[in-house]
């Protein structure tokens, strides 16, 4: 019911908004954020590693850190973020209607979501693919052995569509049990309603931690889809699009240049011109984004570089222990690559 209410509210907001106000919101997202004094960030309702409130109510995660990075760049204060937890079903409506400024909610970048929903993906902060999790005692080694299985899934996701394609192309039968909320889907799998649970591989590791006995479950090796996950913004405000995009790139560039949260103050004295440009010692690259010239310094100082954020939330420094893999820098065998600041 909450979901419907949210959708309906969003629709009402669209209707009630006067045209001039809409035009203003379309071009000056940044001004509105400064006026409100906080960034409104759409997050996951609770996915370990990506967006999850801890026991003190502080939001943590890879996606959450991107929002903190944006807030740091604008306000020099990573806490000036208002988090709106959204189900998969409501997320795009919330972004379209202007309820949130940026959607950092492990959303998959697809053609139709940009062409038909009026959104823009700013980049990929996690290269993912869809997988399956099953109970160890089923003795299954491959997703190709899932013929006839019941699979729990979160509705309204690309996951639901990929699964359908996968089983159809392999000529296998299955039963999809779709839940509006990710937690309900995981609970249903945990209680034995389904033989398998499917979502993006990163999400599988995150969800496994929430199960009663995480050790009794195994993630199957097959990855059945490309899932480039990243933050998205509304179309129609190029400056805001650039700001979010370059917040993401600043973190990757910082990692590539070896600038970390700990050494960023020392790096201000670095003779390397690339570092000088990134940290605002030389030139004023923040101006075109509507930011101050130390914008990237603020991001790294408050949040850290991409490698640190990855490690802290989903990598070796976290409970998930996901390997960098595709998400390593291009110089380390992965495909994370950022255009230079110059």
């Amino acid at each position: 019911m909450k979901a419907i209410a949210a959708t309906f509210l969003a629709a009402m907001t669209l209707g009630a908004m006067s045209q001039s106000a809409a035009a203003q919101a379309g071009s000056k997202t940044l001004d509105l954020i400064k006026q409100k004094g906080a960034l409104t960030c759409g997050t996951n309702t609770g996915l370990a590693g990506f967006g999850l409130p801890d026991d003190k109510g502080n939001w943590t995660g890879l996606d959450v850190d991107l929002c903190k990075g944006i807030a740091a760049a604008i306000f020099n204060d990573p806490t000036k973020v208002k988090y709106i937890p959204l189900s998969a079903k409501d997320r795009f409506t919330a972004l379209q209607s202007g309820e949130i400024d940026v959607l950092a909610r492990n959303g998959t970048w697809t053609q139709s979501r940009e062409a038909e929903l009026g959104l823009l993906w700013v980049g990929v902060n996690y290269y993912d693919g869809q997988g399956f999790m099953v109970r160890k005692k089923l003795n299954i080694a491959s997703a190709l052995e899932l013929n006839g299985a019941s699979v729990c899934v979160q509705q309204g996701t690309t996951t639901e569509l990929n699964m359908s394609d996968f089983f159809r192309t392999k000529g296998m039968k299955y039963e999809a049990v779709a839940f509006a909320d990710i937690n309900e889907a995981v609970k249903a799998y945990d209680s034995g309603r389904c033989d398998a649970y499917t979502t993006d591989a990163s999400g599988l590791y995150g969800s496994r931690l929430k199960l009663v006995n995480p050790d009794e479950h195994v993630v199957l090796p097959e990855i059945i889809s490309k899932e480039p996950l990243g933050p998205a913004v509304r179309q129609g405000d190029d400056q805001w699009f650039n700001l979010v995009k370059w917040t993401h790139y600043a973190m990757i560039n910082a990692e590539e240049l070896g600038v970390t949260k700990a050494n960023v103050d020392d790096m201000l004295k670095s003779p390397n011109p690339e570092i000088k440009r990134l940290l605002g010692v030389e030139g004023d690259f923040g101006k075109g984004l509507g930011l101050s010239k130390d914008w990237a310094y603020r991001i790294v100082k408050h949040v850290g570089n991409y490698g640190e954020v990855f490690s802290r939330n989903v990598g070796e420094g976290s409970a998930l222990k996901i390997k960098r893999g595709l998400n390593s820098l291009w110089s380390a065998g992965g495909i994370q690559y950022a255009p230079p600041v110059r």
Partner: protein
Amino acid sequence: MSLDAARERPSGSFFYNPRVRGLFWQAVLILVVGFLGYEAVVNAATNMRARGIPTDFAFWDRVASFDINLTLISYSATSTYGRAFMVGLLNTLLVAAIGVVLATVLGFFLGIARLSKNFVVAKLSSFYVEIMRNTPLLLQLLFIYNAVLKPLPNPRDSISFGAGFYLNNRGLVMPDPQFAPGAGFILAAGVAGIVASVFYRIYAKRRQAQTGEILPVGRVSAALILLPPVIVYLLLGQPISFEMPILRGFNFVGGLRVLPEFVALVLGLSLYTAAFIAEIVRAGILAVSHGQTEAAQSLGLSRSQTLKLVIIPQAQRVIIPPLTNQFLALTKNSSLAVFIGYPDLVQVFAGTVLNQTGAAVQVIAITMAVYLVISLITAVIMNLYNRRMALVER
């Protein structure tokens, strides 16, 4: 009469004519409301277009490419969004129809039980009514789904009831009847039996009115309805066979399966609504004055005859209007299905379809219109029934 005349009388000036003023303000109100409605629609459409949100219904014929685990009509991932809408709509209607019947039957018995002279029966019934009426429906649904159905064993350890019936956490599995040619005659025989029993009933009533002799209606009707299909079935060499479910791989293959989500939703809705119906039935029976009971008893009618022939027909007049409300509430509450993974209209259409197409306003508007139409149709049917039952005043 005199008041009307006063109102009709034209008062000197046109502007001070109350009729003209009344019409004027009504016209203003209609214009203002119409303008606001028009502005809202145009504004929403303009803003949506400006933001690249689809405003048309082109998505209806596109391929859905997602699967649904309960479909009453043929549906696959290659069907259209429109087809998915039909699947969701039928699933909603299925739950509503079964829920309404179950809730009415259960509510009726509970209502009568509350008035029972038997202390235990009356108290148990009021206990049930108070518990169900005073806790949120969503909690009851989640309780039934998570605490009652999900702890059932997995398919390999299914509870067997014999004759191909199994219960596990994937639902209730049962044999699937397969109809060979000739099975249609069995259905025809059944229909003929029902028609015959109706005629017999009319005949028995007339006979009773003429001679006072009471014919055994119940037993004869049962025989008329049940015997012909059985005889035809045997004569035609048993054209209905049963496909037995077999445990293979993850789950039973073949057979019919009732999903636990469906059971949870139907149970939750009917148990909850039955509590309200019980109160309506109780109130209806109490509304029939005690003099009616005394009169019936002094005519020598037994207690059950009094209830069946005197009390309930009069109580029905009081019961039907509020009962309609409960039917409507049950239908609308079925949208809570979304929380327990039952693929109803809201889950399939206002959920997955909305998300895949991004056409939020259109999809929600269609969904609301559908519930409105279902409710209006239910109300019309109940009103017709009410008119039939209402006291005919002469």
